[in-house]
């Protein structure tokens, strides 16, 4: 789960990391007041889970509180990549002497948290990695011992010469490591870690991505979720226990299992169609999940056909068939449904479907071809 910048700042601050001032605001008047408190000259930043905020006009510099208010009235409510901006972060414009990058990610290869630091901060770190990889220093941390003092110093020495700044940066890195492990993050990043003209080291920005698997046992972190900043159908799906990602095509897909769901989308494309979504109903087959899945997909006006691809293992295909029947009784499904279903209890499932005049295929390719053809007819 992505956190907003203002939420990430709170986590870093709570860990003791020196952070540039800043206030979150939801109305232009709040922005005006915040800008006054922060000294007048500020940056107003849209809080939205989308990259390229600046290019979309979501980050604006203001010389006075009045100008900040004006910017805020435009940024609040604007849409960036389909997401509406509900909050802005107001930060004072800072005098900056240097900008470094400090990031911590979960590294699949070493199976450890991995520090990446670079004196080339303030820019996209992937770009630095691609163009000047020698400017990045890496260190995988043994989670049993944490980031040890000498390791933190070693990383900080890659960034600063002044030993006061080295010590300050080393401390920040240990604090950032604490933020990472204590909150089950998969990414924690300060970009830039800046120095002011008087030599103070402080974080100007913060980015934290949490491991979704952590949220179940951490209601405090789960509460940070901003559902208004997400695609509404994805929020509804999550609440129904489904994994759903909206895409741009017109073939709605309902599949059990993530790998098969991806392969189904790929096969739709292979036969000349475009998938409308990724949807995994998961392993345990509850007819209610199928009803919810159909409800969510049916609401998408671009969907011209709905394709079920179910390979019964733990999932009982008769449960899925019952779900399809229940859904068609509960509400109108305005587009054709193509069903592929095989595996556990498939004979029962076929009888259930035949009872309401529906048919199912056994072969994935046949079903996908038929769905793509129907989508093309309707388009």
């Amino acid at each position, binding site marked *: 789960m992505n956190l907003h910048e203002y939420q990430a700042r709170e986590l870093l601050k709570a860990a003791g990391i020196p952070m540039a001032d800043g206030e979150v605001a939801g109305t232009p008047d709040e922005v005006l007041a915040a800008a006054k408190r922060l000294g007048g000259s500020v940056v107003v930043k849209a809080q939205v889970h989308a990259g390229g905020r600046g290019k979309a006009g979501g980050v604006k510099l203001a010389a006075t509180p009045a100008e900040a208010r004006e910017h805020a009235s435009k940024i609040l409510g604007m849409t960036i990549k389909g997401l509406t901006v509900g909050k802005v972060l107001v930060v004072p414009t800072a005098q900056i002497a240097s900008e470094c990058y400090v990031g911590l990610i979960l590294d699949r290869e070493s199976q450890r948290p991995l520090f990446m630091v670079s004196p080339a901060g303030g820019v996209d770190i992937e770009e630095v990695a691609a163009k000047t990889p020698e400017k990045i220093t890496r260190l995988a941390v043994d989670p049993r011992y944490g980031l040890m003092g000498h390791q933190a110093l070693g990383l900080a020495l890659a960034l600063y010469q002044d030993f006061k700044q080295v010590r300050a940066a080393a401390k920040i890195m240990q604090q950032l490591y604490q933020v990472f492990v204590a909150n089950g993050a998969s990414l924690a990043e300060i970009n830039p870690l800046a120095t002011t003209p008087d030599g103070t080291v402080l974080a100007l920005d913060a980015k934290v991505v949490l*491991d979704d698997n952590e949220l179940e046992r951490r209601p405090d972190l789960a509460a940070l979720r901003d559902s208004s900043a997400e695609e509404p159908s994805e929020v509804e799906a999550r609440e129904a226990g489904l994994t759903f990602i909206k895409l741009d095509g017109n073939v709605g897909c309902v599949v059990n299992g993530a*790998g098969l769901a991806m392969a189904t989308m790929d096969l739709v494309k292979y036969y000349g169609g475009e998938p409308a979504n*990724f949807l995994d109903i998961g392993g345990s087959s509850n007819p209610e999940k199928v009803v919810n899945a159909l409800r969510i997909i049916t609401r998408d006006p671009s969907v011209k056909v709905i394709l079920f691809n179910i390979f019964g293992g733990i999932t009982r295909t008769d449960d899925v068939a019952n779900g399809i029947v229940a859904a068609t009784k509960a509400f109108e499904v305005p587009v054709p449904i193509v069903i592929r279903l095989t595996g556990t209890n498939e004979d029962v499932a076929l009888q259930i479907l035949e009872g309401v005049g529906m048919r199912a295929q056994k072969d994935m390719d046949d079903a996908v071809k038929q769905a793509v053809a129907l989508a093309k007819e309707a388009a």
Partner: protein
Amino acid sequence: MSIFVDENTRLVVQGITGRDGSFHAKQMLAYGTRIVAGVTPGKGGQTFEGKVPVFHTVAEAVAKAAANTAVVYVPPGLAAGAVAEAVDAGIGLVVCITEGIPVVDMTRTMPFVRERGARLIGPNCPGLITPGVAKVGIIPGQICAPGRVGLVSRSGTLTYEVVNHLTRNGIGQSTCVGIGGDPIIGTNFIDVLAAFQADPGTDLIVMMGEIGGTDEQKAAEFVKANVTKPVVGFIAGQTAPPGRRMGHAGAIVSGSSGTAAEKIAAFQAAGISVMERPADVVRLVRERLGK
């Protein structure tokens, strides 16, 4: 012949009295897997299905029932601890089915597993099956058939899809292994490829990968350098949008890395025959076996 599980497997089921654990323990028993013990703390002394003794701890299951393999059906918050318990009791192979384990827990558990020289398969995996001999996990037994094709996959139902194509066309399997869809897993493609390469009962390897990370690219390099048996591969997620987690926690394309195109190119460069769609598996396996 087979890899990892065979007629010597003596299985302990952790979480055997739970909803998932009891369901799948019955399925495994019906398949013929030798389940020698179950473990649920607090339920020691019970008997499962009238024949499997239940213990409080894995250590008891090892001491009293000589278990040598464990399968974990324990809820996500406790699963990493269950893996550590099994390894600490001297179990050499632990298969963790549980989905949703916090990754932080796995970063702490993996070094513990390694230090004790054990193998973990998973988490968030369907387990493995040596058709006709033993199944450990949740792969449906009826879609598999004994034979000489080894299969390794990051996913569950996509594995079933491919195994089903093979079996229906008379191509049996030596062992099918689901390694799991999480970012941190105990056994990766290379571990399984090396085992299949060394297994005299395996003639060809089918490798089912997906977007995210670089495991498939590294596996391709390994194939090029170390695998003399033919390999047929697939990558799921060609249509996945970047930056989104496609169900599996590990299936995420970040920036320009981890894409399907990159992985398919790596497979091809290593001489792996790449399926365009799951149904291609039959044709490619026959081609590579010269049948």
